[in-house]
């Protein structure tokens, strides 16, 4: 007998892993203690078991399973609340339209595109606004240049151009991004390009650190190049920044002196009656429950709403075909939809998916339109329309 006799039982016992309710032996390689926590199906199953009852019942969709693994909300807590870029390698300047003093969705997408350019190379996003604008930190702005309110008028593209040129002079950004919007962004981008003498890459539809591309030749072709300095960002092409707040540190806005050639500017009242349905902001719509079309038209005039209708009333000729709302008519994007006597066929509801506020007046409590509505009134349209006309007139005269 030369060697010592092996004791397999003792060897096995030495490899017992402490903890856990089942005995577990590390028979292969020695387990890494800092690894991913092992999943224990038995304890998961026990946690998912609904207590009480004669037969064992297991609810996999309950809170038990969610609690057993780290949820998606556990991740942001480990990161800092606000991301700060103290010493950026370069700056990307985004110029916001902010119509009415609030960031539009297109502005957010533009800042999101600037964010992707900045994040690719350790840069920072600076946003130029006029007056104070809320929500820039959430939109992904590291720096904010805010021209004091009053220096730039409501429609003042020449002053805005001078402000952008002054900001470019001050910050020396690697890229300047504008929203390609009819609210003024597209106009501003071209003014800046003409004054600075640089080429504008307008309506950029895809963008990375190496390449930007835009449509040309009436949309049939696209041209791609390394991202130039001046770009305007097409609508609905980029995702807005979603996630960590950024610093949005205020910088001093530079002084500027515009050359003014445009004279006085007056906003005009909207002529709701002549608008197309796709453009309209407030639509008064009639369906099969409306028989008094004179009162309907009068109501549209008094409220200043654009008239629309369901397929049935357009088929019967009460309204022209271009006034039809729904899958086979116009898909509307109005802010408010006031529906009289519309039951709400699926094809009609498809047409109003983008509408924010829906008011429905119908005699049937169980109509689909009543379920969709934010304010539903179970009444006859013929009685409510004249009452609403009278009430609106009374309130205006008061």
């Amino acid at each position, binding site marked *: 007998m030369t060697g010592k006799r092996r004791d397999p039982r003792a060897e096995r016992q030495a490899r017992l892993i402490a903890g856990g309710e089942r005995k577990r032996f590390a028979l292969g390689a020695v387990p890494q203690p800092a690894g991913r926590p092992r999943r224990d199906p038995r304890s998961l199953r026990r946690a998912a078991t609904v207590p009480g009852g004669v037969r064992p019942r297991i609810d996999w969709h309950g809170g038990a399973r*969610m609690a057993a693994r780290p*949820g*998606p*909300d556990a991740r942001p807590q480990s990161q800092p609340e606000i991301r700060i870029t103290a010493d950026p390698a370069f700056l990307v300047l985004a110029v916001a339209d902010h119509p009415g003093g609030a960031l539009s969705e297109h502005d957010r997408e533009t800042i999101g595109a600037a964010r992707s350019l900045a994040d690719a190379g350790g840069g920072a996003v600076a946003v130029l606004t006029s007056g104070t604008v809320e929500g820039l930190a959430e939109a992904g702005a590291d720096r904010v240049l805010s021209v004091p309110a009053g220096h730039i008028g409501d429609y003042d*593209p020449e002053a805005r151009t001078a402000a952008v040129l002054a900001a470019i002079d001050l910050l020396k950004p690697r890229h300047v991004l504008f929203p390609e919007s*009819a609210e003024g962004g*597209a*106009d501003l981008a*071209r003014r800046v390009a003409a004054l600075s003498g640089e080429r504008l890459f*307008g309506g950029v539809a895809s963008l990375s650190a190496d390449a930007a591309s835009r*449509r*040309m*030749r*009436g*949309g*049939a*072709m*696209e*041209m*791609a*190049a390394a991202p130039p300095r001046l770009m305007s960002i097409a609508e*609905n092409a980029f995702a807005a920044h979603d996630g960590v707040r950024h610093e949005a540190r205020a910088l001093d806005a530079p002084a500027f002196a515009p050359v003014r*050639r*445009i*004279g006085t*500017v007056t*906003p*005009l009242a*909207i*002529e*709701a009656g002549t608008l*197309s349905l796709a*453009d*309209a*902001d*407030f639509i008064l719509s009639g369906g099969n429950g409306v028989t008094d079309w004179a009162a309907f038209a009068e109501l549209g005039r008094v*409220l200043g709403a654009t008239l629309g209708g369901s397929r049935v009333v357009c088929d019967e000729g009460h309204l022209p075909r271009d006034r039809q709302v729904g899958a086979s008519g116009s898909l509307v994007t109005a802010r*408010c939809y*006031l529906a009289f006597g519309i039951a709400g066929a699926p094809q009609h509801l498809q047409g109003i*998916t983008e509408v924010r506020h*829906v*008011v429905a007046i119908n005699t049937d409590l169980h109509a689909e339109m009543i*379920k*969709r*509505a*934010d*304010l*539903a*009134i*179970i*009444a006859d349209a013929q009685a*409510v329309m004249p009452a*609403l006309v*009278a*009430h*609106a007139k009374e*309130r*205006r*005269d*008061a």
Partner: protein
Amino acid sequence: MPSVAVLLSVGRHPASGRARRAPLDARALEMAFSLPNAAVHAIHAGNPDEPALRDYLGMGMERLTVLSIPRDGDPVPALTAHLEQLSPDMVLCGSRAEGGEDSGMVPYLIAHALGYAMVADIAAVSASAATATLTQALPRGRRRLIETGLPVVATVNTAAPAPRQSSFGRARRGVIDILAADAPPDTLADQCEIRPWRPRPKRMRLAAAASAADRLKAMTETRSGEGAVMIQPSPEEAARAIYAYLVEKRIIGDGS
């Protein structure tokens, strides 16, 4: 009697790809015709033998000036030099061409070079001896009235009145005046990769939800409203409720 220069370009039919009159430039020409007593000068920079130019002549002009420049030339210097000589009170054109780079820069560069005022996206125009009144079209049917001194460069939006049809006889009879012009070659296109447009998948706004089941539910289910229901109110009560709701959501202004 204001003098109006209209800048015309050759369009491209979106389906067939054939040359046509550019719809926005045709609207600009129609707008120039709507000005009373205006002397309309139509100008094109490009190939004088392009048959689509006759469509503009068919709208009712006797003459069309073509600055003959090569295909890859930059039209801005030639147009600027010609307009400087012409010194019109107003320059009209479509807001975007369709067939070249489509950058929409030409009116801005001309306005900058000549020192004219520049107004974008107009839907209507009227002019007096020293001022022009332009109606600017904005999204959602909003309009803005802009009064500005002459001369002015204005681009025309799709909200402007539709152009008249082109008449075949007038198109045949019209005269094209050809002027030689210098155009430096445009080098941007050489630096870019140009390829056919590939339609991209539409970006969807994903709802932020914990699980895939919740996201699917948010994407597919019909949106339901806040669900305030009034059952058989009197017409006056209903009218008050509707009016208060519209005022609360700032759809209409409260009269009182």
